[in-house]
């Protein structure tokens, strides 16, 4: 055990490499799984929206509206449990920040639809005066 220090260092390096390789492989597997989930879920969602909205008068991209509605609901609705939430408020804020880029494209649509939380709302424009 406490023999050759060089051998011990080599062993430690080998273990480190093995651990790195293991976690790299885990990351790859996780990434592949997430891609698969994303694809299959996305496709199913689209198909289901397609079915749901057949025959209605719609010029909008269903997926974007669904995403807006999803965000509204998941982040603002649902049962709230107090005390034991370990996702800190700061993280929730970060989530919003993270989602903002994604939602930015949706905001244009939101403006078209008039869901309008932005400063571009016509009522705020200077020429309204």
């Amino acid at each position, binding site marked *: 055990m406490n023999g050759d220090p060089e051998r011990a260092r080599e062993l430690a390096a080998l273990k480190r490499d093995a651990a790195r390789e293991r976690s790299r492989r885990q990351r790859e597997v996780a990434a592949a799984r997430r891609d698969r989930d994303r694809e299959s879920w*996305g496709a199913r969602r689209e198909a289901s929206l397609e079915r749901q909205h057949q025959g209605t008068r719609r010029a909008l991209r269903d997926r974007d509206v669904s995403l807006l509605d999803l965000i509204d609901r998941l982040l603002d609705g649902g049962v*709230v449990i107090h005390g034991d939430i370990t996702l800190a408020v700061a*993280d929730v804020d970060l989530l919003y920040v993270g989602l903002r880029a994604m939602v930015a494209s949706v905001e244009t649509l939101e403006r078209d639809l*008039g*869901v309008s939380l*932005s400063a571009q*709302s016509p009522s705020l424009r200077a020429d309204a005066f």
Partner: protein
Amino acid sequence: MLYVYGLTDSTREPEGPGLHGAPVCAFGSQPPFAIASEHRDLPAHPDEVDLWTHERVVEGLMNGSTVLPMRFGSTVADEASLLALLEERRPEFLSLIGRVRGAVELSVRAQVTAEREPTPSITTGGGGGAGGPGTTYLLRRHDAQQRADEAVSRIHEPLARLARHSARKAGGLDPGAFKAAYLVDRERVEEFRARVDELTAEIEGARIVCTGPWPPYSFSAEGRQ
């Protein structure tokens, strides 16, 4: 830690994995049961896939059980604290589950036109004649608001009559913007959609978009209507 997706009245577990592929299980020995997955840690920056995964798990519970969805990001330290939470708030959760049983949530967003023509009938009398630009603006805005309110009521009221409960949401600063959630009996969903289409045709300049059925996110807290 345990990530909680929802509370249900049965131990039926959803098919398919939860966040990051984790298996999803039911916890508890009597209703309400909690549907959760175990995680060593969760990323501080969840993404769109995580949101849809949460949604998919909850939707997977909707057929066959009544489910109260949790807000995204709800976690508890361990099974003991989850069971304590269920015990502590059992009456509240059971009453909420009863309230949404047999119904789904439909979302409606609408934009009605609230064009701002000048209103010649309104002028300020006496003194220096017509009001300044500020007054004119406010009057015009008031007028637009009234017209928009009327149009929005023409959308909301008939839809609310088809729903068990409804919840109007803040539509932002645009008076013509409208957003609401409706808790609708499953067997009336088609009727509700058909009504949305009729209203779109009836109300000039109105654009109405309905999505769902969603789990009852907007009806999962007491006092929220």
